[in-house]
């Protein structure tokens, strides 16, 4: 290859070639009108193509996420009208000279006065909290067993936990109707083994809602728990048993405390969506099962009271912001440590 004295030759054209190619491409594209127009716009506004790339998803989210939410906020302060759209304007021109802001707090007052609403809020939290606890109790042994399973099984088990998540949520909830109803499979089974004589009322009760939430959100609990338990160093338990700690006690003293980050993550991942859940209480719960998502839906679709349902939405969000913030804090802290 070479005489050590000779100059390396690959770079004869190095810098010039690259630049030439880029500007050549540009020149060729300039033949097309849209590119020319686009380029002209860009250079007039002084925007770089990088800024433009940033702007598309940014604008999209501003338009379809932030703006709609501001509109909800706005409508929650207006009055219901039988019109199109069925709510009053927030700003009104008075005598064509000044703008009048009419904040209507009636919707919020109604939410506070009518105990239906705040009961629905409290009941949402209660149902979500109880379901989260049950999910934890059901999910922990599963995650633990998965993490201790032989290594070659683990990937398959993990897939098996995730698989239901990919199938339709609605269908999974629907499947329980057939099981829980009065002449359903659960009652059939319980009567067959002689545990009960009369069929139990399971469907359209809070119990059915608990079952539905636990069933639907179980993967959200198992996955973070598994991730946590799986990476736990088993030599810690060996050290504990070497120092004379019995297995059950080692679990209490070592495994459980170390898995707290997983428990916290799992609980938030179940609790937060469960509070605003609509499908499960609607299909499995009874008419006395109060959940705020259901109330909002009814206010909107049945009563067509848009301002009131907007106010319900705003308050629901305020309710959720606290756990969401705490969750983010916890995650960040863990991220910082890990």
């Amino acid at each position, binding site marked *: 290859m070479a005489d050590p004295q000779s100059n390396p030759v690959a770079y004869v054209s*190095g810098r010039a070639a690259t630049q030439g190619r880029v500007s050549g491409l540009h020149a060729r594209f300039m033949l097309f009108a849209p590119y020319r127009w686009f380029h002209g716009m860009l250079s007039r506004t002084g925007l770089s193509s990088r800024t433009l*790339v*940033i702007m598309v*998803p940014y604008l999209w*989210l501003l338009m*379809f996420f*932030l*703006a*709609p*939410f501001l*509109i*909800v906020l706005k*409508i929650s302060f207006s009055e219901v009208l039988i019109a199109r*759209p069925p709510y009053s304007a927030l700003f009104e021109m008075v005598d064509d000279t000044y703008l009048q802001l009419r904040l209507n707090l009636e919707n919020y007052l109604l939410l506070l006065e009518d105990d239906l609403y705040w009961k629905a809020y409290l009941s949402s939290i209660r149902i979500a909290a109880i379901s989260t606890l049950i999910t934890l109790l*059901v999910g922990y*042994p*599963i995650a633990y*067993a*998965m993490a*201790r*399973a032989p*290594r070659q099984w683990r*990937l*398959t*088990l993990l*897939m*098996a936990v995730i*698989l*239901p998540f990919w*199938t*339709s*949520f*609605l*269908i999974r909830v*629907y*499947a329980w*109707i*057939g*099981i829980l*109803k009065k002449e*359903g*499979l659960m009652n*059939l089974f319980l009567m067959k083994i002689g545990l009960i004589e009369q069929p139990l009322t399971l469907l359209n009760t809070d119990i059915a809602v608990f079952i539905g939430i636990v069933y639907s959100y*179980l993967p959200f609990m*198992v996955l973070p728990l598994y991730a946590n338990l799986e990476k736990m160093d*088993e030599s810690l*338990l060996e050290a504990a048993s070497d120092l004379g700690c019995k297995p059950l006690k080692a679990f209490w003293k070592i495994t459980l405390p170390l898995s707290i980050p997983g428990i916290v993550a799992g609980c938030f991942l179940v609790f937060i969506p469960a509070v*605003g*859940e*609509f*499908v499960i209480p609607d299909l499995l719960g009874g008419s006395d099962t109060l959940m705020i*998502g259901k109330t*909002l*839906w009814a206010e*909107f679709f049945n009563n067509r009271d848009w301002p009131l349902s907007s106010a319900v*939405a705003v308050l629901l*969000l305020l309710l*959720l912001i606290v756990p*969401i913030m705490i969750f*983010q804090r916890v995650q960040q802290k863990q991220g910082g440590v890990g």
Partner: protein
Amino acid sequence: MNRGFTWFNGVSLVLGFGFLYLPILLLIVYSFNESKLVTVWAGFSTKWYGALLENQGLLDAAWVTFRVAFVSSTVATILGLVAGLMLSRFGAFRGRVLFSGMIYAPLVMPEVITGLSLLLMFVAISFDRGFVTVTIAHITFSMCYVAVVVQSRLISFDRSIEEAAMDLGCPPGRTFLLITLPVIMPAIVSGWLLSFTLSLDDLVIASFTTGPGATTLPMKIYSQVRLGVTPEINAVSTILVGIVAVGVVIASVLAKRDEARRAQDERLAAAAP
């Protein structure tokens, strides 16, 4: 590790997976029931599947759902890819906090709120509701999922391979196309699949944002479910579950074969000098 695998763990797994899969299995079994009554087994039959083919409303809804899912997941993947890149690569740009807030918020936002707010906005700008609005709504939340998937892939991405490409004379834009994109492609594909299933699955947001002529399959199923359990819905559900199951099984078999080949390659490589 086997030492820790006791009878307790075995029972947990059996009960846990039984709980996860039994309802779906029962649903599938009863979709082949001759009787209209769900609880009475009256012999094997595929007549409910036949009935589906005659249910034009259901077929229309399925077609709408598929189109919405395809368009929304494709657009969401592109937007989500850009958003994921912005979050992990663009450093501090103006409004970054707001942007990452807007990416993460839809993931925890109750669907009823997302749906309601989008609907109210479409009304406010008097945009006719239908196929387009449902698609826009699905793009909005799907792109956030894609962004998160892409971002987490980019975080674990060894940036020195991009530097190596530039060092070898490849300008930044081309480095992205030739190196970054192919390497993160699996994440992009799974982002697309995730968007697709989320869109197929969505009832609440679609119910808010849809208009006449754009009834999706979940909406159709929901309105029938409210009237009670029917074998027909069982049959639809079985088909949907079947499609997903086949897809996931194929994907995991491929992944497993890939894994096995990789492991073999690595053994081979380790044996070499």
